[in-house]
């Protein structure tokens, strides 16, 4: 009965508006993907025209530069950040939801407080710290801040999910003499795999796309991540090689897009939770 009071004409207008906006949302990505297959002769023609053939030379050019190196850096950093977030966040969430102790509430608000701090406000001290410790231009300089600023939401998600797991499930194990660590590792953590999936997917996208830390802490060419590398790519190839640039952009979007196609529910859940909570 939801649509009562609506005639066919309104419905048609609705669909036209929706499809028009969907086209606006997707066109830039279609355009860049199509343009990446254009040979030089096509690139000289008006930009909105379709490619006349499937030309792969742009990809060959893009991949022969530093791009594979940037891919590797981004991947290593993403894996380390994701692993650390789950490894640090899930036990903390467990302690805050399933163990009764005096300062549980205060610790929770202490973590939540972190979501209100703009990471920008911490850049200068971080830069100084990493400089002194010799961590600039190492993977650590990008792993540490992203884990630190990712923890509050990660812990919050684990905590709220775990507190809904009934205690009766763990009591039997406790009576049998299972340690807290055992209960966490073999009962609670496996049951929270939905939260783990959400944490992994939306953080992967965040880490893969991260710009500010990489731009600040990485200055040598071989340590750059994809987003920063993409920026250099334009300069490196000059204004002339647009084909190579298009291919590089397309390649850089591909991993997040593939992940999104398969796991869009988790991605959307994680990102909206991040926005609403912050």
């Amino acid at each position: 009965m939801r649509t009562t009071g609506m005639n066919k004409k309104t419905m048609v207008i609705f669909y036209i508006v929706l499809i028009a906006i969907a086209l606006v949302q997707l066109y830039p990505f279609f355009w860049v993907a199509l343009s990446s297959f254009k040979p030089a002769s096509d690139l000289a023609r008006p930009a909105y025209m379709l490619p006349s053939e499937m030309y792969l030379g742009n990809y060959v050019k893009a991949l022969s530069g530093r791009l594979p190196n940037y891919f590797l850096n981004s991947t290593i950093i993403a894996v380390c950040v994701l692993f650390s977030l789950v490894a640090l966040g899930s036990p903390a969430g467990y302690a805050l939801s399933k163990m009764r102790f005096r300062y549980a509430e205060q610790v929770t608000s202490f973590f939540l407080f972190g979501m209100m701090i703009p990471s920008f406000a911490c850049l200068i001290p971080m830069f100084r710290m990493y400089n002194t410790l010799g961590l600039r231009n190492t993977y650590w300089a990008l792993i540490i801040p992203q884990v630190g600023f990712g923890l509050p939401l990660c812990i919050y998600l684990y905590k709220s999910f775990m507190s809904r797991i009934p205690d009766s499930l763990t009591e039997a194990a406790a009576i049998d003499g299972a340690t807290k660590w055992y209960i966490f590792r073999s009962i609670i953590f496996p049951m929270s795999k939905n939260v783990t999936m959400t944490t992994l997917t939306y953080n992967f996208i965040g880490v893969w796309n991260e710009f500010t830390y990489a731009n600040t802490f990485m200055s040598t060419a071989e340590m750059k991540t994809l987003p920063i590398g993409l920026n250099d790519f334009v300069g490196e190839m000059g204004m002339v090689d647009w084909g190579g640039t298009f291919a590089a952009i397309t390649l850089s979007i591909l991993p997040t897009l593939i992940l999104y196609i398969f796991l869009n529910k988790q991605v959307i859940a994680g990102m909206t939770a991040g926005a609403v909570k912050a």
Partner: protein
Amino acid sequence: MKNQKLKKRIMPWLFLAPALLVYCAVVIFPIIQSIGFSFYDYSGIGAMKFSGINNYLKIFKNSSFRIAIRNNIWLMLGGTCIQMIVGLGLAIILSNIRRFASTLRVVYFVPCIISSMAICQIFAKMFSITPEGVIPGIMKLFGMTPIAFLSDVKWALAIVIILDSYKFIGMHMIIFYTALMDIDESVVDAAIIDGCGLWKMYTKVKIPMIINIIVAELVILVNGTLKAFDVSYILTGGGPGTATELVATYMYKTAFTMTKYGQASAMAVFLAVESLLAVGIVRLVGNKLQQKY
């Protein structure tokens, strides 16, 4: 027995310790240090000299920083309005259709998962005059003279506002959409029986019912737009001139191009306090609004 008790008390902290340690080292310690730096005359090298509120006086006298604040207020107003109106409008339309609703929802979210860098690079190419990008090409097709939007003082800020909104509109749409779908069917049915049309259904029934989400969205949008950085920094570098300079981009330049750490820290503190204040005001007004309904 005493040992057992002690163990029980220490146990939670063992689970918490690694996370707490990292969190304090990465988030809490630097923010405290930032506040500290803002009261010192400090440029990275050499001694730090205590200078009281001198840095704060300096940044507010700085005309570039004042322009950055003004631009940022425009971005906040423009970005919040665009994302609010388009996001809510789309969510309303989407909640009224049956077919393809879930596919469209997934499509609208796509720009949120693409890096700012890729989006800015794509749009920079689309706006480019030489070689000619899509937008000047289409303008020519319609017999218009192409405009160099990104290097035109009159247009650059508008483009930054639009692109910043473009990137996140899908997410705000989904938050509204979820709220609209959560409204109790029976309320809607009762309104229909009372002869409630589509327009009244929204202005009198549905929107008042999700007013809490609208306030929450307002908080997210105001908070997010005040801290905006990526699009302006990557797409226009704050330029042409200071046309798209924002508080965050100017703070970043002051810190890492001019290496005036003291003043940049004062700007960072200003940014944090400003957004906390703005969020507080929105919440206060929002609560009043909620009581009215």
